[in-house]
């Protein structure tokens, strides 16, 4: 069996002592930062990026993936114990999880989250192993026109699923693309928008933008929020669920796993969409929907399984097509590029040990998460009681050193300061910064493929509809846009987000 041979290769990489160690470090650090209130996976990964720069690509990727799962789980811990969800995918967990904590069942809620996540992680790893090779096979036949249309489709998908105003999200993507233009144009060697500063010739590092917006900008925003919520820390005991509790959590976890794994693959999809949908599903099929919001275990198990499943399967479009589905995947693609790797169908063919090692490490990472968190949850809870006034200077310092260390460039720190301000401004203007990051990463790829496609067709734009693959993506994009314009579906989308947000 091919799959078994591939997974065997993957596990031989993932189980190498050094890789296990970096995976463990990633999960540990990710949970540690992710557990801090107000810091979601995107901010956590941005802050911790510099720790992975000096590593080999393989180890760096495994560690980054570990940071991601850790941050995700840390966010759920905070949501359950303090009702301060770090990011939108934990908002749902907070609704019933925090109620459980108030009823003295914090331990059960945390265990439910951990076990449901592990179950979904295992399933999603298998999905990747089975689906990725055939998808990459297809992707190898893509020409420049097909890639162009695929990326447009991906960006439109991201817009639809962004919260809030669609026009703002489109604008943010374009701002990101404009920032991506900065630097020397590869085709004509003309320095574009460098304003005579030689260091801008290579473009702005995506890590500088990410740390500025998500590290510095969010810290300023968090400082404005006054008032501290009480952590239900003392209630953490009795972690292992009783048999009847296990029986209650397994069916919703299964449904969440399937739903999340499916939604994670969509462009713009990922954990946020998955957890909201899973919650809505559980509430709809429940015989006692009035229990939801008052500590229903299904309301924790379903969404937690879904968001972890989606977190994992959103690696599929990234690794097989080179298409980041959401902001976290945009960070991953950026980190890969810093190591000189270009995600896409060639990655699996040219570097099978890297690809399969990552896939296998997803499973070992999830296992570590359970093993680490069930006993250590008391320590994470203690971390929550640390006053914010000690934490945020540390976060800023790590960001500043991290930005400086990328190129040993003080100019990068100044640029990050500017993006810190930009990030703050965007939050104040109710603009989601995530599409900006996607536009920044995809912009240069879109330009490159647009140029190549039109060179091949000698300037004839009909190439985009004449090629069947490209045409399919454009039709799908058009369908998405129509869906977006349809008022009924739009109000539905707003309702789903509002139900979760309230």
């Amino acid at each position, binding site marked *: 069996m091919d799959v078994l041979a591939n997974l065997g290769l993957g596990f031989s990489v993932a189980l190498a002592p050094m890789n296990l160690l970096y995976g463990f470090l990633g999960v540990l650090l990710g949970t540690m930062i992710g557990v801090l209130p107000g810091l979601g996976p995107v901010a956590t990964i941005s802050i911790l990026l*510099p*720790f992975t720069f*000096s590593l080999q690509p393989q180890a760096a990727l495994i560690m980054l993936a570990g940071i991601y799962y850790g941050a995700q789980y840390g966010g759920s811990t905070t949501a359950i114990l303090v009702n301060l969800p770090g990011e939108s995918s934990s908002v749902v967990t907070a609704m019933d999880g925090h109620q459980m904590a108030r009823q003295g069942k914090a331990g059960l809620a945390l265990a439910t989250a951990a076990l449901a996540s592990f179950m979904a992680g295992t399933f999603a790893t298998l999905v990747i192993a089975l689906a990725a090779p055939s998808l990459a096979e297809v992707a190898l036949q893509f020409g420049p026109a097909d890639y162009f249309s695929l990326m447009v489709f991906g960006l439109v998908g991201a817009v639809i699923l962004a919260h809030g*105003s669609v*026009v*703002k999200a*489109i*604008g943010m993507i*374009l*701002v990101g*693309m*404009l920032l991506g*233009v900065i630097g020397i*144009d590869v*085709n*004509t060697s*003309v320095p*574009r*928008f460098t304003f005579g500063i030689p260091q801008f010739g290579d473009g702005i590092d995506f890590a500088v933008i990410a740390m500025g917006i998500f590290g*510095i900008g969010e*810290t*300023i925003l968090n*400082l*404005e929020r006054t008032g501290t919520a009480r952590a239900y820390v003392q209630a953490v005991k009795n972690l292992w669920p009783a048999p009847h509790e296990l029986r209650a959590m397994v069916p919703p976890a299964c449904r969440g796993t399937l739903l999340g794994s499916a939604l994670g693959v969509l462009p713009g999809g990922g954990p946020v969409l998955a957890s909201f949908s899973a919650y809505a599903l559980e509430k709809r099929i429940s015989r006692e929907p009035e229990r939801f919001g008052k500590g229903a275990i299904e309301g924790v198990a379903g969404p937690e399984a879904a968001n972890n499943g989606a977190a994992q399967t959103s690696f599929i479009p990234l690794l097989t097509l080179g298409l980041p589905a959401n902001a976290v995947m945009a960070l991953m693609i950026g980190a890969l590029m810093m190591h000189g790797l270009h995600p896409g169908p060639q990655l699996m063919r040219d570097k099978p040990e890297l690809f399969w090692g990552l896939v296998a490490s997803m499973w070992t990472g999830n296992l570590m998460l359970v093993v680490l968190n069930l006993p250590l949850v008391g320590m994470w809870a203690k971390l929550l009681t640390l006053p914010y*006034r*000690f934490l*945020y*200077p*540390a976060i*800023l*310092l*790590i960001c*500043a*050193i991290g930005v*400086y*260390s990328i190129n*040993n460039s*003080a*100019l*990068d*720190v*100044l640029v*990050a*300061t500017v993006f*810190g*301000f930009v990030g*703050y401004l965007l939050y*104040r*203007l*109710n*603009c989601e910064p995530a599409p900006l990051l996607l536009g920044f990463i995809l*912009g240069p790829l879109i*330009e490159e493929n*647009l*140029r190549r496609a*039109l*060179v091949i067709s*000698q*300037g004839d*734009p009909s190439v985009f509809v004449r090629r069947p693959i490209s045409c399919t993506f454009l039709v799908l994009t058009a369908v998405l846009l129509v869906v977006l314009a349809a008022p009924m579906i739009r109000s539905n989308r707003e309702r789903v987000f509002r139900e979760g947000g309230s």
Partner: protein
Amino acid sequence: MKVRLSTDLLTGALFIALGGFAMAYGSRYALGTAARMGAGYFPMLISAGLTLSGVVLVVRSFFSASDEIAAIGWRPLVFVLAGVLAFGLLIDRLGLLAAGIVLVVAARLADREFSLVETALLAIGLTVCTAAVFLNGLGLPIKFLRF
């Protein structure tokens, strides 16, 4: 007529300003043709798109209500940014110890509860700890002290 400073209006104005600037500045790059794109073709395309989405937002803000912009907390904004900026200006001249301490002190000034002794201890402690992790642990080539 009183113009409300809605987030839509401000965002739109920002998009128009940025898109307009990029079109004006980018006009120095050759456009070329679709088959042979110059350096300016793609930037012109996206900055025109950006300007257009800005116009849509501004127009829309006159017809439908959106949230008004919330009050800006100047204190965290100014002190945090000043701290990071100072770090960037000092790191090459004085090294990590001085830059780190200045950053932490400025960051703590962003908070209303400020205690001198606590801040001093925090600044030194954090800088030494992060230096140990980044310089000794990760081996980054950053100078700790520089005169």
